[in-house]
């Protein structure tokens, strides 16, 4: 298929924006968390400093670490970058969009998860395996929930291609979809879980009773760790964009109006800022769950999403 120069441009822009802005979003959220908890906040650019520092350090790997261990950070980073490239954040006219639809996107996240879990098991420390197990435990409930949430939108727009969803959502006349309400709640829960946020996980602590993400990356250092952290913020960015695409698909540029990107970029920034604040708020007001409560928490999301589907089937909307 022929790719229009604008589309190509949009794709590049989106990649760059994602890579650049992802740590910023993380920083923004951390800042707000701090403020909401009456702490003095770190700088907005703190994540960049951390990444830079880590990249400079000499990497350290366990003696028995296999190639899989070393390859994983790059693979995970690649997955997240691709995810950010697929989700229509800046424009819906992305050359990569048709290559992977919503289901493929979920598959992509799963791929990353499987790799990181395997890498965590590779060295063979108690922590690694524990982290891997918990990650997969969260994953096997979060994935279908996410998928169902996406399906709610797909049923409405009768398409699983994200850009098509955004197009339809944004440009059919405004309408309230009850099913999307369920989907929204489900999606929020899932993204909390997937991005290692309170109440599911707390990146700030290293308490083995609770930690998931930190346990996974425990063996990593330097550039590997940096890439993983960066990938984490990319994941957060991607999730936010998906959320926006599903629930606030307004202001995203279309194929017919390439220059709309000039509007869509600030719009995106604004939406992310608000979303980040909301996330910080949620994290502040909610308390960390026990690890065995997490499946129930996610099960709620799963059930809600399914109910969303049923509601759609019932009301035909």
């Amino acid at each position: 298929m022929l790719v229009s120069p604008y589309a190509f441009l949009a794709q590049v822009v989106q990649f760059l924006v994602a890579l650049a802005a992802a740590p910023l979003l993380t920083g923004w959220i951390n800042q707000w968390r701090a403020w909401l908890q009456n702490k003095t906040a770190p700088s907005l650019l703190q994540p960049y400093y951390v990444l830079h520092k880590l990249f400079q350090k000499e990497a350290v790997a366990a003696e028995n670490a296999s190639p899989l261990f070393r390859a994983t950070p790059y693979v995970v980073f690649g997955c997240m970058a691709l995810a950010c490239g697929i989700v229509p954040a800046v424009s819906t006219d992305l050359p990569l969009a048709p290559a992977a639809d919503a289901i493929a996107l979920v598959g992509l996240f799963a791929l990353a998860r499987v790799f990181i879990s395997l890498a965590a098991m590779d060295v063979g420390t108690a922590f690694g395996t524990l982290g891997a197990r918990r990650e997969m435990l969260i994953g096997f409930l979060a994935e279908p929930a996410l998928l169902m949430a996406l399906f709610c939108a797909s049923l409405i727009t009768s398409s699983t291609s994200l850009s098509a969803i955004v197009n339809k959502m944004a440009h059919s006349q405004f309408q309230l979809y009850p099913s999307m309400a369920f989907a929204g709640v489900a999606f929020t829960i899932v993204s909390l879980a997937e991005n290692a946020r309170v109440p599911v996980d707390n990146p700030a602590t290293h308490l083995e009773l609770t930690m998931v993400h930190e346990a996974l990356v425990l063996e990593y250092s330097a550039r590997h760790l940096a890439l993983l952290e960066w990938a984490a913020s990319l994941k957060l960015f991607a999730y936010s964009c998906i959320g926006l695409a599903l629930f606030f698909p307004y202001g995203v540029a279309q194929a017919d109006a390439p220059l709309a990107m000039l509007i869509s970029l600030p719009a995106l920034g604004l939406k992310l800022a608000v979303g980040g604040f909301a996330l910080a708020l949620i994290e502040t007001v909610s308390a960390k769950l026990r690890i065995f409560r997490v499946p129930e928490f996610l099960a709620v999301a799963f059930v809600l999403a399914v109910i969303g589907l049923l509601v759609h089937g019932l009301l035909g909307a």
Partner: protein
Amino acid sequence: MDRMLNLDTILTVITIWVGIGVIALVAPRRTRFIAHALFPASALLSLALGALAIHGLFAPPQATILGLGLPGLPFHWRIDSLSAFFLAVIGVASAGTSIFSAGYLRKGEGTAPGLQCLQYHVFLAAMALVVLADDAYSFMVAWETMALSSYFLVMANARVASIRSAGYLYLLLAHIGAIAVLLCFGVLQASTGDFTFANLRAQQLPPFWASIAFLLAVIGFGAKAGIVPLHVWLPEAHPAAPSPVSALMSGVMLKTAVYGLLRVAFDLLHIQIAWWGALLLGLGLLTAMFGVVFTTVQTDMKRLLAFSSIENLGLVFVGTGLALMFRTYGMQALSALALTATLFHVAAHALFKTLLFLATGSVLHATGERNLGKLGGLIRTMPWVAWLGLIGALAASGLPPLAGFVSEWLLLQTFLFTTHLPTSFLNMLVPVVAAAVALVAALSAYAMVKFFGVIFLGQPREEKLRHSRDASRCERIGLAWLAAGCVMLGLFPIHAIDGIDRVTRLLVGFGLGPTVHANGWLLLAPTSIQRASYSPVIFLLVLAASTAFTAIAARIVYHGRLRRVPAWDCGYPFQTARMQDTSEGFGQPIRQIFESFFRMHRDLPSPFDARPRYRVVVEDHFWYWIYQPVQALVERVARLAGRVQQGRISIYLLYSFLTLLMMLLLMGR
């Protein structure tokens, strides 16, 4: 004339297979000869068969009659797209297993290699003949021969009691299934007495009898496919067999059951009824959930794979059910979509499950261990097996861009259309099913991470594992062949769908071929590009590109220095390999969440126990719900029957006296 050649050539190939077996029987103990001459030859034959089958897939049907068999009913053979598809699957998969066996076969106790070789090839031939059979008799003969030969293969070293009971259970259930199939044919022929499929096809059964036939088919073929509750034999028998055989049984033999079901439900029966589809859907779902949940808690690597096969067959049944439902409501296109997903999954599962079983075979030979609790860290000593196995594991967990994902993707796509079903009940049901399918997929990923991680990653849990040797050359070839298959099938689904297109045209009168091709070979869009599209090639390229780019960039911008140090011990220096998470540990969360699925016996040591032992046995409810009661019933009836025979001659005379009087009363009138 060239077309006529095709089927005859196929039959010849099959005959040569048997011939190879017989040759092996002549020199039963010459392992080297059998391994290095016969098995590679049969692998080549498999390739030829696969090629011929693919040719036959696009050719019009051909039939031929062999003068053998019953006088009134000689062996009819016929190849149409459906049988050709399954024949291709058999060819491709068996090529892998045969070449693998060439490296795998070695002296040892148990059946003599030559005999094994014979049984193996009879097994292959029987499977091929099952899909070629065109009358009830030849089908039954092939079907039972398949069961019988695989039974003997399972019993390869029958000195182990557990293997014996496994074999018994297997053959018994296989036979009961076969009886159901025979009855099914009996119903289908509608007392015309003509058992050729042509005639069965021609019969116009009333709905009631059609349903009976369908149910019998579900029982018969379900027993072979390991559909709950007829699954109990599968996790016992598959692990018991030598690995190449387990691979064939899981990867290929189960598919013949799918073939049989499709043949009966779509081809031989002239009507379909809505609740059939719903039934299959329900059964499939139950099976899939059951299978995957049990997969996650297994501690024996081959058992784990066996349960995963149950899960996958469940998914296949779900797809078949959907296809059937759409067919009944006259939605040919959707039916075709569902069927495509199903058949694609059949092919994918054949590849990756065979691959995984063969990998376990290599591990078994290198370490002599099947227990996950005693493996680990093999990626360092057996890189070939590990990396090729990784491909299989990823494909099995349905991750893009590999084969497993495509079928899952297609299946989920199908679900998104189901809201157009006429009955609201199904509309309500289907989203739930879709959710369950998604859950199953995610859980299978969980199980595969456990499988791969515990076997190949971490530190070796036993000292001997440090000296395990990697697979031999032939084994590597076999593994690589199948792994390549997984990748290719994942990257170029469109070309596979071209073939499947013919099958769906045959069964439901519609094919995805044209729509798929509308968007070029790169982009898979089953219905329309607006609706959904997926391009594994681009997906992989971008992924690889960004990964490579990051790696290079990191090196260029900063540096690529790496220092090797001991793993961080969290300040606790006395760590051993045994302190890693065990396979039980890995499955524990699932065991907790899905507790109601299992029947568990757990004995936990007390805190003051000097030498604490933790043991957990996970069992299957169905055994206690169904099989034991049936057994008891038979016993009771037998005891009653035994009363008749209680040794006193006068009583015996009395029997015959009374019989005489009764007969005289009845017939004297």
